[in-house]
């Protein structure tokens, strides 16, 4: 369980990192926290010629709050995001998801950008970003581009990142008015990758009906995705609706099968967690509306 021999490169600037990516032509791995890549290197599931350590790029460790969004540099540690005082007020879904990400001893080093780059279908941070319709910022010699998170994840450990690009940051839409957020997952051990994780953002109008809804599923198919819930907009934000949505969506998913769970179990988790998370989001939205 030792990695293959690799060249170690620690660039001081993003431009240097991009030069290295070009030099190794796709045969290099970028390491930030190393919580996923380190394991894959040690098990020789990846055998790169070079490891490019971006931990020296301190500019990528900033959190910036804008009018409508919060930007997190790719190197923001999960623990640093959790300790960011306004996280629950600004990006509540991320604040709810983070305690489920790994453990005290892994969040201290693991980064938000690294989790997105790794693209485990069960990972919580990509799921939160997809549910909120956030974006991934990538930089290459051709310039910068913002990619909607919902189009960024292409499949198991596969993203739209090109071999010459580095992820520099993530963009999180801020909490919206009259909107509630909820997150829940089932994992074999607290902090492990979820067997199934469910996230929701729900807006409830003054008539008590759903005016906007985003229901994100992780660990179900080969990437985090948002379920097609458009037909339920306008329905009342009640337990009956929550159960109706979860039951309907559970019939449409095509769950993966692995050593942890079969498809039926994952489908059942979509039903149970889905109804629970939707109702929690409806309740939170109603509370926000009444407080406003």
């Amino acid at each position: 369980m030792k990695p293959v021999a690799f060249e170690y490169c620690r660039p001081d600037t993003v431009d240097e990192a991009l030069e290295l990516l070009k030099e190794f032509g796709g045969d290099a791995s970028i390491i930030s926290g190393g919580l996923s890549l380190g394991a894959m290197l040690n098990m020789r599931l990846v055998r790169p010629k070079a490891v490019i350590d971006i931990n020296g790029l301190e500019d990528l460790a900033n959190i910036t709050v804008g009018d409508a969004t919060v930007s997190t540099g790719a190197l923001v540690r999960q623990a640093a995001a959790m300790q960011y005082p306004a996280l629950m007020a600004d990006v509540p879904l991320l604040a709810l998801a983070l305690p489920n990400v790994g453990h005290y001893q892994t969040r201290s080093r693991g980064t938000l950008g690294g989790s997105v780059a790794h693209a485990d279908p069960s990972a919580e941070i990509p799921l939160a970003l997809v549910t909120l319709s956030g974006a991934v910022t990538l930089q290459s010699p051709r310039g910068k581009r913002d990619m909607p998170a919902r189009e960024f994840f292409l499949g198991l450990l596969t993203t739209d990142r090109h071999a010459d690009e580095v992820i520099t940051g993530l963009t999180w839409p801020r909490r919206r008015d009259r909107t509630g957020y909820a997150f829940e997952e089932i994992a074999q051990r607290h902090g492990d990758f979820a067997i199934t994780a469910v996230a929701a953002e729900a807006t409830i109008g003054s008539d008590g009906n759903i005016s906007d809804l985003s229901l994100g599923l992780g660990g179900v198919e080969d990437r985090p995705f948002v379920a097609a819930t458009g037909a339920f907009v306008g329905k009342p934000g009640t337990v009956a609706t929550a159960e109706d949505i979860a039951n309907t969506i559970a019939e449409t998913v095509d769950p993966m099968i692995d050593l942890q769970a079969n498809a039926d179990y994952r489908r059942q988790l979509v039903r149970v967690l889905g109804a629970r998370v939707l109702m929690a989001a409806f309740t939170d939205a109603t509370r926000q509306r009444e407080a406003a």
Partner: protein
Amino acid sequence: MLRIKPDQKQRVTLVVNGKTVSGFAEPRMLLTDFLRHELGLYGTHVGCEHGVCGACTAIIDGAATRSCLRYAVQCDGLEIQTVEGLAEADGTLNVLQKAFNENGALQCGFCTAGILMSSTKFLQENPKPNEDEVRDMLSGHICRCTGYEQIVQAILQASGQ
């Protein structure tokens, strides 16, 4: 920019438990192996080598984290605390170690060094944790002997509760 060739042995200098020490590492050498085989500090244990079991946890640059997911060359110049640095100056066990001893919080001891280092940092950040917080922190460690009850008790005792 720092570049180290795959077979190149690089001098790595660390401040381990307050003492400046150095050795040589090629890029793929895990920090865990560097501590054990280059520095002779066998207290940090190697379990799963992919970040799951927690046996190798040390306090690296002020954070309790996995030393099997760090390469030694990444750590040049950093401060590291390992289990060897916990005892009092006269060699007697510190408060946390005594609490582990008194509560039977270890049997085979393989996981203990990592749990002690996590708990040390955790108690610095959270001096009066409740039981749920202790269990949440411990979820990053695997112990196959104790069933965790005694470990939870020991950590609560060490926090004066």
